[in-house]
């Protein structure tokens, strides 16, 4: 028995010598792992110190949050039904107008940014980088700037949604155009059609369903954004939320949040129906 066991152990030792990695990480890898873990914990601790995240503060905050949650139930619309509904309507209208304008303006921009339409590499590259720069800024930043430029109200929200969305849609359109099949355009050009005709009859029928679908997705996402733009004064239901949070009418805040959730779900559902009807899938 001892001899058998000894042979067994020596076998294992031989295997371990031959294939050390099969028996777990090498000492170096293990050390690196420990160092990585230590660095991670140090980073966390440093951040907690910097941001003043202490258990006491978390506990106080959580108990405050619990009080707020209890005050939120039951949600109540308060006595300013009309304001809330108008805010909701404003949000949807801002999203619709901003997205439609962006979807139209993005078509020529998307053509400019597509590699197979604008062949000049430098022009194509710089147009794309400008789109990226616009997308790097959040809609709320645009909203804040437009509020300073054109004043408080939904117009600033429309402009903000438009500016932020036009870059996103232009990029998506450009990609759709680049992915289009070139044979149909070549056919029209070979039959003597001009460049414009080739784009109208060779390119547009291919990319239009994609563009429509993207625009509808953009509308859905913009309804969500338009709901909060009011926080910086750009109209819509966000203003109603911010005002009620300032005066701590938590039951009304909860009601408005629920109202937003329901409307967003409804609009997603309707937009999905339209999308399936328009592009068939």
């Amino acid at each position, binding site marked *: 028995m001892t001899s058998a066991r000894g042979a067994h152990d020596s076998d294992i030792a031989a295997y371990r010598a031959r294939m050390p990695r099969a028996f777990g990480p090498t000492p170096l890898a293990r050390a690196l792992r420990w160092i990585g873990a230590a660095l991670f914990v140090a980073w*966390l601790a440093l*951040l907690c110190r*910097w*941001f*003043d*995240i202490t258990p006491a*503060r*978390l506990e*106080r*905050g*959580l108990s*405050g*949050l619990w009080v*707020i949650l209890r005050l939120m139930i039951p949600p109540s619309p308060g006595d300013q039904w009309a304001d809330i509904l108008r805010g909701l*309507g*404003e949000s*949807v*209208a*801002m999203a*619709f*107008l901003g997205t*439609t304008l962006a979807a139209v303006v993005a078509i020529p921009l998307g053509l400019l940014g597509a590699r197979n339409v604008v062949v000049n590499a430098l022009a194509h590259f710089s147009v794309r980088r400008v789109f*990226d*720069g616009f997308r*790097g*800024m*959040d809609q*709320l*930043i645009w909203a*804040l*700037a*437009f509020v*300073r*430029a*054109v*004043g408080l*109200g*939904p*117009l600033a*929200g*429309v*402009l903000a949604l438009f500016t932020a969305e036009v870059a996103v849609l232009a990029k998506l359109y450009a990609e759709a155009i680049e992915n289009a099949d070139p044979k149909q355009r070549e056919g029209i050009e070979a039959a003597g059609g001009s460049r414009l005709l080739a784009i109208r009859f060779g390119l547009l029928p291919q990319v239009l369903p994609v563009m429509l679908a993207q625009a509808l997705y953009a509308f859905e996402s913009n309804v*969500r954004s338009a*709901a*909060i733009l009011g*926080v*910086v004064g750009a*109209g819509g239901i966000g203003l109603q*939320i*911010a005002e009620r*949070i300032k005066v*701590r009418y938590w039951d009304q*805040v909860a009601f408005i*949040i629920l109202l937003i*959730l329901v409307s*967003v779900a409804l609009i997603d559902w309707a937009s999905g129906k339209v999308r399936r009807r328009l592009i068939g899938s």
Partner: protein
Amino acid sequence: MSAATAGLEAAFLRRAGSRRLATVAGFALLGAALLASAWVSEAWPSSIAAGLPRVGEYFGKLVPDLRWDALLAGPRTEGSIAFWFYRLDSWLLLFETSQMAALATLGGGAVALLCCFPAAANLASNRVVYTVFRRALELLRTVPDIVYALIFVWAFGIGPLAGILAIAIHTAGALGKLFAEVVENADLRPLDGVRAAGGTWAQGVRYAILPQVLPNFLSYALLRFEINVRGASVIGFVGAGGIGQELYTVISFNYYQEISAILVLIVLAVSLIDLASERVRHAVIGRES
């Protein structure tokens, strides 16, 4: 023969006519909706026409006064790049913003990691658990993070903590759904193997499912980190920390040059982080296949 052609042509014209009618009706509907939304959002052509020059004027003021001869001079010379970016604290705030986003992604990702297995249809022990977890994640992600931030600023006080928690909660909901979908696509045979060898459900998840899904999880978490950096740059508008607070101040006080300096910094930082995280994502996904 000619009768057949004529019939065909008539059918074609009828079809083309009905299509045209549908298109016209669609455009009429679109036009009516546009008019209605223009009326509600006070965006008449006249108000837009009145507003556009002011927009041009405002953004024109944001353009920094740079002079060619002094472009590379020190921060004390007016017209140099260094003078434009003289406020060093905005660099620090930018770093704070990125750290807020990182911490929020980490926290939200950890919650999502715990919730995604019961929220996956193929792993949840029963229908009730699955539905409860799915609905809870949906609730977390449909409320915008800035609304959470508005509420948390009351509970936790002004500062980065409220922003981090707000972004983390939204992230938990968004990532939890994506993670659960990845888990639903995982191969279940390794799990069967572990369970057959006597492993518990938790051991099965750890040793059979997690190795399959981890690369995708990492990739989604990095994508979310990019989104969260954008979110963290504006969450300060409501007092929840980061560079947004500073941006709000300089926009309110019309410090035009500083607005554009901070905006350029934000765009640069966001693009840099996007580029870096894209490389890491491709590396992570590439190693998997």
